[in-house]
């Protein structure tokens, strides 16, 4: 009379997790694609000074970098040098560099191009001023003195 159900027939089948690694690998690949890695190898030593009133640079694609500092290789002396992209350059190369950077951006974004100066603490202002004068001549007015944020407690 009474019908007994067969044991176990109603049990849910285990969810297949075999695609899990694939999903994770996909995520991994996504992250690898989206994070931009540093493109230049530094040839100058840069230990920027710290400041409290720093702002974040908003559009990373619209920033070009100029590096100033003493060369990493000791045999190149101790005097501060300018590095643009991957090589040492002189002051005279800056306008060309800025023009090339501008050329690489969209027409609409060119006005917003910021030049970030990554300068070592020990560098004297003379060379920095020279770089700034070159930038002024070529019309790259937006600049940023790259400094990490100093951790200090503020009394407000």
């Amino acid at each position: 009379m009474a019908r007994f159900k067969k044991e176990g027939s109603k049990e849910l089948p285990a969810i297949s997790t075999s695609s899990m690694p694939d999903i994770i690998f996909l995520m991994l690949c996504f992250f690898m694609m989206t994070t931009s890695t540093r493109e230049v190898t530094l040839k100058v030593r840069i230990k920027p000074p710290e400041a409290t009133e720093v702002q974040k640079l908003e559009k990373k694609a619209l920033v070009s970098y100029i590096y100033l500092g003493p060369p990493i290789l000791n045999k190149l002396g101790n005097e501060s040098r300018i590095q643009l992209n991957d090589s040492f350059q002189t002051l005279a190369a800056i306008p060309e560099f800025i023009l090339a950077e501008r050329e690489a951006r969209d027409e609409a974004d060119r006005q917003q191009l910021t030049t970030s100066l990554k300068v070592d603490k020990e560098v004297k202002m003379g060379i920095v001023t020279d770089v700034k004068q070159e930038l002024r001549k070529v019309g790259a007015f937006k600049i940023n003195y790259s400094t990490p944020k100093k951790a200090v407690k503020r009394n407000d």
Partner: protein
Amino acid sequence: MARKIPEINAGSMADIAFLLLIFWLVTTTMDTDTGILRRLPPPPVDNVKPPDVKVRNVFNVLVNKSDRLFVDGKVGDIKTLRNQTKEFLSNVGNLETLPEKKIENIPGLGPYPISKGIISLKNDRGTSYDMYIQVQNELTAAINELRNELSKQKFGKKFEDLSSKTEIDAIQKAVPMSISEAEPENIGGK
């Protein structure tokens, strides 16, 4: 007779992939660049004279090649520079010696006395970049503090927490970032 090869257990595969993912996340630094933003003035035109500015409206900051400060005619110190700058720009008591103010109607704020004070920063070629940034930082801090005070008073929020564009513009107009850098001159040699 062909023996069945037992299936390799792939259950830990997900864990291995997760480990890789976490390793990647930890090692890549999303280096967001921070810094002090400035706008350079356009190059000077030869036949145009710079506008005359009254002495009381100028706050002179000089840094020499041994990183010493000379603020408004006296030997200065980096620690007091911020307060000196604030005092100069705000001119609470409307003193004769401190900068004039010009009352202007600012949308969102109403008439507000805008200080005509200009900070003039001059450095030597031998000044270290570190000192230069410290000075710039103190001057920026002074302006930021003034902006914060005004913003708190008018809108009840700090300047950086403001969200509406008119409010931000109003504060920026009321407390302008008026730092002017002198044309470079070779004063103390290299």
